[in-house]
C-alpha cells in the first residue's frame, strides 16, 4: 500500500501530449516520406504539389496530421505559459485564447487543403 502512494500520478494533459506525440512520430514520418522521397527529388513544382494533393488518402492523412500537430503545439505552448506562475483566472484565459488560435490554424489548414484538392481534381 505504501508503495502505491509513491506511484506517479499523471495529469490528463501529460497523457494526451505523450499520445499525440507518438501519433505525430508516425504522421510526420509519412508526411516527410510522401513529400521528399516518393516523387524523385521531392515535390518541387506547382504541378507536383497538385498531383500530390489530388489523392484523397493524402488529404485525409494531411488533415489528421494538421489536427494532431496543432493540438500538440497549443498544449505545449500552454504548458510553457502555465510555468509562469499564473493565477487560475489567467490560466483559464490562456486556455481559451490558445483554443481559439488552434481552431484558426486548423481552419486555415483545412481551407488550404480543400482549396488545393478542388483545383487538383477539377
Amino acid at each position, binding site marked *: 500500500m505504501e508503495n502505491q502512494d509513491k*506511484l*506517479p500520478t*499523471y495529469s490528463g494533459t*501529460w497523457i494526451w501530449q*505523450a499520445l499525440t*506525440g*507518438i501519433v*505525430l*512520430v508516425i504522421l*510526420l514520418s509519412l508526411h516527410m516520406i510522401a513529400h521528399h522521397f516518393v516523387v524523385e*527529388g521531392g515535390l*518541387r*513544382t*506547382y*504541378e507536383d*504539389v497538385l498531383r500530390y494533393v489530388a489523392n484523397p488518402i493524402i488529404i485525409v492523412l494531411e488533415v489528421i496530421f494538421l489536427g494532431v*500537430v*496543432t493540438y500538440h*503545439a497549443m498544449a*505545449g*505552448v500552454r504548458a*510553457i505559459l502555465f510555468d509562469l506562475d499564473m493565477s487560475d483566472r489567467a490560466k483559464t484565459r490562456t486556455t481559451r485564447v490558445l483554443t481559439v488560435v488552434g481552431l484558426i*490554424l486548423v481552419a*486555415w*489548414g483545412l*481551407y*488550404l487543403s480543400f*482549396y*488545393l484538392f478542388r483545383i487538383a481534381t477539377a
Partner: protein
Amino acid sequence: MAVPIQQQSTVRRAIKAWFDPRGRSTGLIAFALMRLSGIGLVVYLLLHLVVLSTLTGAPAPEAWDTFVRMAKHPAFLLLDVILIAGILVHMLNGLRVTVVGLGFGTNSHKGLFWTLMAVAVLLVAYAAWLIFTK
C-alpha cells in the same frame, strides 16, 4: 586562468546564466532543449502555413515557383537542417520522456538522453548530406 565571477560584467554573467550548459543537470538540459525546440517548431508551423498559402494566391504557380527557387539557396537549406535538428531532438527526447514517465528505465534516463542525442546528431548529419547533395 578563469576570471572570478565577481569581475565579470553583468551582461556576461547574464549570458552565462542563460546559455552556459556546464554544471547543469542532464534533466535541465533536456528540459531546456525540449522547450526551445518546441517553440521553434510552433513558429515553423505558422511559417509553413504562410508559405503554403502562396499556393492559393492569384498567380499561384509563379508565387510557388519563386518560393521554391529561393528555398534552394544554401542559406535556406541550412534552415532546413536546423528544422530537422529541432524535430529530431524534440521527437527523440519526447519518446524518452514518455518511456521514463511511464516508469520504464528510470535509472538509466541520463544515459538514454545522451544516447538519443548522439543518434540525433548522426541523423542530422545524414539529413544535411541529403539536403545539400540531392
